[in-house]
């Protein structure tokens, strides 16, 4: 609608202008006629009178132009004239136009695509009401930062805060929906009643939880996401009020969330929560030191994150003074804006990519400037002619600049197409962890960005050539009679080559470092051997697995059944697979038994609950002692296996086997934590549990009967193909429990690949951009060298005629054209050395000053650059003196 109105007003202004133009012509002509009438009275023929009147009037076109300028609103017309002229010029040289537009489309298109990602992830507010006021509140326990809060902590904070309007909490676990067509394991979130209203205006059906509905004893209610509602409930519009079975209990469905609702939290496992239920618990009565709740708050209007932070600090210090649990573990609270926290892990990567793409654009500009300079010879003649006919220099520069900006805009239009394709491709790379990426699209912001960029590009690449064309002595230029000349401008061209090569060099070095990082990631020893290990997940909820015994029996039986599968070498299970970020982590303090109080509550370790044979199955290295056996149950022995990190931390240089460790376990059932003493029976090599690049906490493994958990991942080392395995597993599980859904059937390798995904994403994109820059730089070098050879055809011919060896001539051209390439490489390496430390956060296993990368890049770039020179240089040796001299 707006666009239409704009077009209409533009068109009417246009018609109005052409009428005004006609009137102006009529007025000036009328003046000349009147004058002629007067002159005729003095005995002059009409023809003679009119001629004289015209002469007296002066430069008709010049005054008309001045009138136009005085009339105002004149620029639209000038621009229009200039654009029409530019179109004519481009149509006259379609080859140039095609190369220029294609180059621009690549350069700007890459920017469009990357910007749409940066815009969606970093610039646009999260899709929540008052998104700017949402903040995460993290607990710090001892040395563990960014931890979850305990129930009492949330309630205390909520009661005391003045900075926050609301503070909600969420805990994500796993649950089972039954009673529908097919039982399904779903990601389940337990929330406070006020949590969902923080993140959505209203549900698409029904309502949110009401205050108090999250208390112990309240009726069990449930809110579904749009996806689950469609999949499991056939998008039934009358769903509200019906009951669904979750974990064996009936829940009344009270609402369905909006279609586009998504939990965009720093914690990737939250992204696909499908069912929300209230805590149904009195949070204030829970353990003060069992942290599991993620807190999100909405700041009061006008309160800054920094103010909220200082309030949180003072509340934490009050809490430390009031309860010994908080004091012992030196609780602290930190407030971070939700958006900032969300993009924390991807920001460096995206900013680096954006910087890279800007470099590509600069290379594009340098390339085009060069292209235009090559054409400037013929353009100088034309503009000199126009200057001779009375055009002002300012006017000519404006015209040339308009022409270049117009060219930039044409490139920008083509860039939208390329950007669209590139964005599709980027999205298809599906980088893990950049989940805000789904929102990336070519929206108004991106269009505006592309437009502005096109215009800026036009100015940037067009200014130097425009100035150079419009300068110069008229007479000299006209005397040259249209011959292409490059007098005095070759230094500018050389400079452009130097900058092109050096910019490309920076990009290549950055990319080289990313490739080195990726190869380091491939070489990382994660502490286990993921090849041939297939996995799946089971969620044990509901009354059937209410006792520890029922759970252990089920797992034991399943393990026996799976062992019978052909191709199986070993079967085991664990509460939390390495590199699987889909589950809540379990970690707590540990210390050697009998440690003094000040040594307690200092270090935490991840706690894993495993079946016998786990380390053998995933290919971990047992350094000492033995694995768990079926006989290691809670009744007879309290045993644990620790990794070398734990044993080094508390018994450095000693044999850990047989030593006693104080840990938290729950032999009475999941979540019923008690502090107990266990005997270490084995030491295993550290397993990279959360990332390939950082070592992370130590790990303590407990047998299932000591630490039953609601979710287990079964691991099977087998030669069976995935499909056979999947079918067998489904059947084996169904035979034991037809209501138990199998989920996350996948090779362990997939988790490893996910852990490399972000680096892969950055590496692939950086590689593409660097290749693009290299390609553009090559075109530039090739173009300039070819041009200079063509320019010097005559000189080369003369050299050859007076006896120069063609091979020497080729070497001379190569030397002269190669010099800027070499200078560019050196300058580029120097700039890269200054800039690459900024990439440190993205690098792993390689230093920003990695000599191998620098050496490889300079060799590649120099070789490619010299090759680009070589082809035209070779052509120079083939110059036929007779033809060359005759044509000149």
């Amino acid at each position, binding site marked *: 609608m707006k666009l239409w109105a704009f077009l209409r007003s533009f068109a009417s202004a246009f018609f109005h202008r052409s009428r005004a133009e006609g009137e102006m012509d009529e007025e000036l002509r009328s*003046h000349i006629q009147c004058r002629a009438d007067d002159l005729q009275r003095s005995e002059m023929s009409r023809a003679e009178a009119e001629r004289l009147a015209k002469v007296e009037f*002066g430069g008709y076109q010049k005054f008309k132009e001045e*009138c136009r300028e005085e009339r105002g609103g004149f620029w639209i017309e000038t621009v229009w004239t200039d654009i029409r002229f530019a179109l004519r010029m481009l149509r006259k040289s379609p080859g140039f136009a095609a190369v220029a537009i294609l180059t621009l489309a690549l350069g700007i298109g890459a920017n469009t695509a990357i910007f749409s990602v940066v815009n969606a992830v970093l610039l646009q507010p999260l899709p929540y009401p008052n998104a700017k006021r949402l903040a995460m509140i993290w607990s710090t326990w001892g040395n563990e930062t960014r931890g979850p809060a305990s129930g009492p902590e949330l309630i205390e904070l909520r009661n005391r805060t003045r900075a926050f309007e609301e503070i909600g909490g969420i805990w994500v676990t796993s649950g089972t929906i039954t009673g529908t067509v097919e039982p399904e394991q779903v990601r389940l979130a337990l929330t406070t009643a006020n949590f969902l209203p923080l993140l959505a205006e209203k549900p698409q059906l029904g309502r949110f939880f009401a205050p108090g509905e999250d208390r112990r004893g309240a009726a069990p209610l449930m809110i579904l996401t749009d996806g689950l509602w469609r999949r499991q409930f056939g998008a039934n519009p009358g769903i509200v009020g019906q009951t669904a079975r979750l974990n064996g209990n009936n829940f009344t469905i009270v609402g369905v969330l909006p279609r586009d609702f998504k939990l965009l939290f720093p914690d990737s496992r939250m992204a696909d929560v499908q069912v929300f239920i209230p805590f149904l618990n009195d949070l204030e009565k829970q353990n003060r030191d069992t942290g599991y709740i993620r807190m999100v708050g909405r700041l009061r209007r006008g309160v800054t994150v920094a103010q909220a932070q200082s309030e949180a600090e003072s509340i934490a210090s009050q809490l430390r003074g009031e309860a010994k649990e908080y004091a012992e573990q030196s609780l602290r609270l930190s407030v971070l804006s939700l958006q900032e926290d969300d993009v924390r892990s991807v920001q460096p990567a995206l900013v680096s990519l954006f910087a890279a793409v800007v470099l590509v654009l600069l290379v594009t500009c340098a390339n085009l400037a060069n292209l235009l300079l090559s054409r400037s010879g013929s353009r100088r003649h034309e503009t000199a002619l126009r200057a001779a006919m009375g055009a002002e220099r300012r006017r000519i520069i404006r015209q040339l600049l308009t022409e270049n900006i117009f060219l930039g805009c044409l490139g920008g239009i083509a860039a939208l197409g390329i950007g669209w394709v590139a964005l599709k491709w980027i999205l298809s790379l599906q980088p893990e962890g950049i989940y805000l990426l789904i929102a990336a699209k070519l929206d108004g912001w991106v269009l505006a960005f592309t437009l502005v960029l096109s215009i800026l590009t036009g100015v940037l690449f067009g200014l130097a050539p425009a100035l150079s064309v419009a300068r110069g002595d008229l007479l000299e230029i006209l005397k040259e009679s249209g011959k292409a000349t490059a007098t005095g401008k070759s230094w500018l061209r050389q400079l452009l080559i130097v900058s092109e090569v050096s910019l490309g060099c920076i990009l290549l070095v950055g990319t080289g470092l990313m490739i080195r990082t990726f190869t380091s990631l491939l070489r990382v020893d994660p502490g286990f051997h993921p090849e041939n290990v297939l996995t799946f997940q089971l969620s044990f909820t509901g009354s059937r697995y209410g006792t520890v015994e029922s759970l252990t029996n089920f797992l034991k039986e399943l393990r026996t059944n799976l062992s019978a599968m052909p191709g199986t070498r070993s079967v085991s299970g664990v509460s939390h697979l390495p590199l699987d970020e889909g589950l809540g982590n379990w970690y707590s303090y540990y210390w050697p038994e009998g440690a003094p109080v000040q040594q307690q509550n200092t270090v935490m370790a991840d706690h894993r609950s495993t079946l016998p044979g786990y380390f053998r199955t995933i290919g971990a290295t047992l350094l000492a002692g033995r694995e768990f056996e079926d006989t290691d149950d809670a009744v007879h022995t309290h045993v644990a296996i620790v990794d070398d990190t734990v044993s080094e931390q508390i018994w450095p240089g000693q044999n850990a086997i047989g030593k006693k460790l104080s840990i938290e376990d729950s032999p009475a059932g999941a979540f019923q934590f008690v502090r107990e003493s266990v005997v270490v029976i084995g030491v295993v090599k550290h397993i990279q549990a959360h990332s390939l690049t950082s070592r992370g906490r130590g790990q303590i493994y407990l047998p299932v009967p000591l630490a039953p958990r609601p979710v287990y991942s079964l691991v099977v080392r087998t030669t069976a193909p995935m499909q056979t395995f999947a079918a067998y597993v489904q059947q084996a599980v169904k035979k034991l429990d037809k209501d138990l859904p199998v989920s996350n059937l996948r090779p362990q390798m997939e988790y490893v690949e996910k852990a490399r995904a972000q680096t892969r994403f950055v590496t692939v994109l950086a590689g593409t951009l660097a290749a693009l820059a290299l390609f553009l730089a090559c075109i530039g070098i090739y173009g300039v060298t070819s041009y200079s050879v063509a320019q010097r055809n005559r000189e080369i011919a003369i050299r050859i005629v007076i006896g120069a060896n063609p091979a020497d001539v080729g070497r001379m051209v190569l030397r002269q054209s190669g010099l800027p390439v070499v200078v560019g490489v050196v300058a580029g390496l120097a700039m890269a050395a200054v800039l690459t430390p900024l990439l440190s956060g993205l690098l792993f296993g390689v230093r920003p000053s990695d000599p191998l990368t620098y050496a490889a890049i300079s060799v590649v770039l120099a070789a490619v650059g010299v090759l680009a020179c070589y082809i035209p240089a070779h052509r120079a040796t083939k110059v036929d003196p007779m033809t060359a001299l005759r044509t000149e």
Partner: protein
Amino acid sequence: MAGQAQLLPGTLDLLILKAVSLGPLHGYGVLLRIEQISRGALLVEQGALYPALYRLVRQGLLKASWGTSDNNRRAKFYALTAAGRKRLRQEADGWNRLVTAIASALGAQPEEI
């Protein structure tokens, strides 16, 4: 051409305003009127008149409308607006002050110092 003076920069607008203040005129008429009221002493380049007229219209000092000239030609007539009248008064005052000042400066005799 003896007896004719080139216009000082900026004086053309003033002359046009004065010429039009004596009654609406078309472009050529403005030219003739300036010649007439300056007794042929001021020379205006014919074409240069029009950019100045367009400028004065854009500034809202003149208004233009189409009509018929004495010798029956269609022509655009210019008339002074209220703003134009005010501007003419200011510019004329300013000009007179300047002329008086310059004249008295040039007429200064050694004994007056």
